[in-house]
């Protein structure tokens, strides 16, 4: 249960990391 929840949270962190990287990339492309 805890392992799965940790996995889920790590997946969320990975998702947020991708979103942040892409926002920075798009900002650079638009500037």
């Amino acid at each position, binding site marked *: 249960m805890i392992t799965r*929840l940790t*996995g*889920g949270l790590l997946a969320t962190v990975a*998702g947020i990391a*991708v979103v942040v*990287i*892409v926002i920075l*990339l*798009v900002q650079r492309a638009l500037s």
Partner: protein
Amino acid sequence: MTRRGRIASYLALAVVALCLPAAASAHAYLVKTFPAASVILTSPPADVALTFDEAVEPRFAIIEVFDASAHNETTGAVARSPANPDTLTVPLRHVPEGWYLVYWRAISVDGHPVQGYFTFAVGPNEGPEPQFTPPHISQSATTTPLLIARWAMFLTVMTAVGLFVFRLLIARPLVRRVRETELRSVSIAFFVACGLGLLAIPAYLEEATAVDSLRSFFAFGALVPLWRTTAFGRGYLDLWICFALFVFAAGVAIWVDHPERPHRSLASIFAAAGALAAAAALLAIPGASGHAAQTAPRPVALTLDWLHMISGSIWIGGLLGLLVLWRSLPVARRVAGLVVSVPRFSNTAFVSVMVLLGTGIWASVLHLPVLAALWETSYGKVILIKAGLLALAMLLAAVNLLRTKPRLVAARTRAELGEPAARLLRRLVAGEAAILAGAIFAAATLSSLAPPPPAFAEEGKALAQVGPGKVAATVSQEGYRFQLVITPNNAAAPNSFELVLTKGGKPVTGANVTLTFAMLDMEMPNQEYQLTETKPGVYARPNSSALVMVGHWGLSFNVAPKGVQPFTVLIEDHAAG
């Protein structure tokens, strides 16, 4: 479609795409050279310096200086000038009097190769300019292996994202509604697509770097350090990192998901949200490192490209997911399984196709300066091929939506309808997926070509098309007669431009005539020159080196006769090498 038929259609598409003329593509352009083009120096230069409008990577650049007997006169490697990061220099040996040809090739920050050449002389006894044969290296970003690598990358990444959405959101209820079914094969197909995508992205990056730096694909030691030197390379490296993070998040989301339970667990919701956010975000990267980021209005172009990628991914991934499901379901449960999955996918696919169509049309409008560019440029022709393939896929999708889906739904009460409908569905879906894979190949080709420059819009207004070779043409406008002579009309060489202006058979004297050169094949700054009246009604500019490269040029003569409203005469000239 049979397997053989599918392979044949892939080959046919590849042949069509490869037969298309390669287009010049560029975003970096040369703004200044030392020595200047066609100049005659009094002493030999110590080096040749080329200044671009942006910083270009010296490790990708070539500058060669040839004498009349094609002997290379450079003595060292191309380096960045310490004084100006936009300038590249190459040292020269102490050259004797005579004419020299400078050939250069560089890579724009967006990964597109550009090249050109010009001549200069060392005097005072330089003699007549010899007929140089400039070296030619493919200028195109569309070599066959590169296109295939790009296609493989798009196909695997889009399929992985689409299969994930299919597994997690579309096919999930199947397990609860139909006994003895599972989604393991869809998950396996997803992980296979992920594995291939994780290989395809660096393979594409390696091949693109190899093509740009004129090295072998297997020169890993030399090429890998160059991956991050262009904005293009950095963009795809970021795509690789983001895709790997998505694969991790999606893997967790599938691992913690229990489709047999009516409600999702907290872990499952977290993981699914993370993976879906990663999937959506990473599909914006190709646009941010491609043409969309350079097409005004850029926020609109980027959003269109992003939505286009998302909708395309859901469509292709869902189709492949349905095929995997068809094959993996036990025969006794196949129809029941499809009855659950197909209507759910049909609804999603319908929305996706509409978004794909809308964003595709809108993006084409943004990228093409005039409608004629659709059939007159390589870029436009690939759009037509892609649109044709999508139309074909939509036709099959329409049959599925209007015929197969209602029959599958009806099979809930009339079981005999189920089996034939399932068979038809498999054939149509396989055909649709193969055609879509072809459309993705067209998209990979399209994004490798440069969109036509804004100056292309002027082409339709040209009064005459002239060249290649010496030009002697006569056109009339506003009651004036224009006799145009261009000699020898060669690119990268001095040319004489002469305009004889008459009205009612009499020379028009004292007019102010300027000539603007616009490159029609790629984006470059325009050059403008004043023509001087050498004889009554004869306006000329001798020895101009304005036609700096081979291709189509828009020559705008802005004529302002004394006391009369000025007007413009546009001639399209083809300058050969």
